[in-house]
């Protein structure tokens, strides 16, 4: 197993950490550059995490605002991306808690039955008659994958998203989720096993997942 902590020297060499240090000194353009660099990555990960595009954008804005407000205390102890996604994960967790509390109060929304959100199969059944087969196939697999992703717990999902889309190492994921590398290894192992169980039928029966 690799070392459990990112070295501070590596963090200090991170160009984005340098930009953040410039923002700390009052250079707004440096922060604008950071927002520009990370906006798509952050919104992308958050969209998969909260499964709501608009909420993901709002959350991303909140992340940048929080980072900017905390700029005076910023120290480059980790890569900037790790720092940013750690804050994003914390804010997303808070939001999930808030949404969970609201759901406890406001039961049975118009699209949700007693079992919660509608399953991907139901949505697909409703839309299948409206589009060409090829497009439908793509949307179907997206829905199935999204559905499989939603069965993971919060930490598993975040670890999967960071590893898949941010190509983060286990060390960086551990720093982001404030846990150990060993815990990340277990998280990802269980998450990928869950995904395998959910998605294997689609891989073996359909054409998806064949080697590109």
């Amino acid at each position: 197993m690799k070392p459990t902590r990112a070295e501070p020297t590596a963090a200090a060499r991170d160009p984005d950490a340098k930009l953040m240090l410039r923002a700390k000194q009052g250079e707004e353009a440096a922060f604008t550059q950071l927002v520009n660099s990370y906006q798509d990555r952050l919104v992308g990960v958050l969209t998969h995490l909260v499964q709501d595009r608009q909420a993901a954008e709002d959350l991303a804005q909140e992340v940048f605002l929080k980072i900017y407000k905390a700029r005076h205390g910023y120290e480059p102890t980790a890569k900037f991306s790790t720092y940013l996604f750690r804050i994003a994960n914390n804010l997303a967790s808070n939001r999930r808690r808030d949404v969970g509390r609201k759901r406890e109060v406001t039961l049975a929304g118009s699209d949700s039955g007693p079992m919660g959100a509608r399953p991907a199969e139901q949505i697909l059944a409703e839309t299948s008659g409206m589009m060409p087969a090829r497009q439908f196939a793509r949307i179907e697999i997206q829905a199935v994958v999204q559905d499989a992703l939603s069965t993971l717990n919060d930490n598993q999902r975040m670890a999967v998203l960071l590893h898949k889309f941010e190509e983060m190492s286990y060390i960086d994921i551990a720093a982001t989720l404030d846990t150990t590398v060993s815990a990340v290894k277990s998280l990802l192992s269980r998450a990928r096993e869950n995904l395998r169980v959910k998605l294997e039928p689609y891989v073996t029966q359909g054409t998806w997942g064949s080697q590109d």
Partner: protein
Amino acid sequence: MAKISRLSGEQRENLVAYLDGELDEAAAKEIEQALASSPVARHDVDMLSRTWDLLGQLPTSPAGEDFTSRTISSIRAAEKPKARVDDAAVSRAIRRTLGLAIALLVLLGAGTAGFLATNRWVPNEADEILNDYEVISELDKYLEAGDIDYLTKLQEHREFTEHDEPNTP
């Protein structure tokens, strides 16, 4: 799960780390040996890999075109007005406190002046009684005496004057 029962729990956990290139050399070698001797483990690794690739099918969700400008604007709005609001709030609070203090002082002054004025120039019933106390306390005697001539005559007699002197009003 039965499919990979030939692998130990640790090896099963290491399969994913192996695929992710996160194992050290010795652990990776151990997994490679297990894979070489187990078609079931090879199948599982293949499925883990192919199902993982499916995540790449998820739609990308880039930020809106004006995301950066909106974000920077909201940051400016959250930062700068806060300072202005703070200054304005402080000066408003000072003005309000001063105003209140002045109003209180005026009220207190007016109250004191009013009290003194009414106390000094507007006599009340109690003051009148106190002023006339000496007369009132001897009123029975005055009524008995009748008029001033009778008292004058009475005074001319020495024997009455000497005894009554201490009680003379």
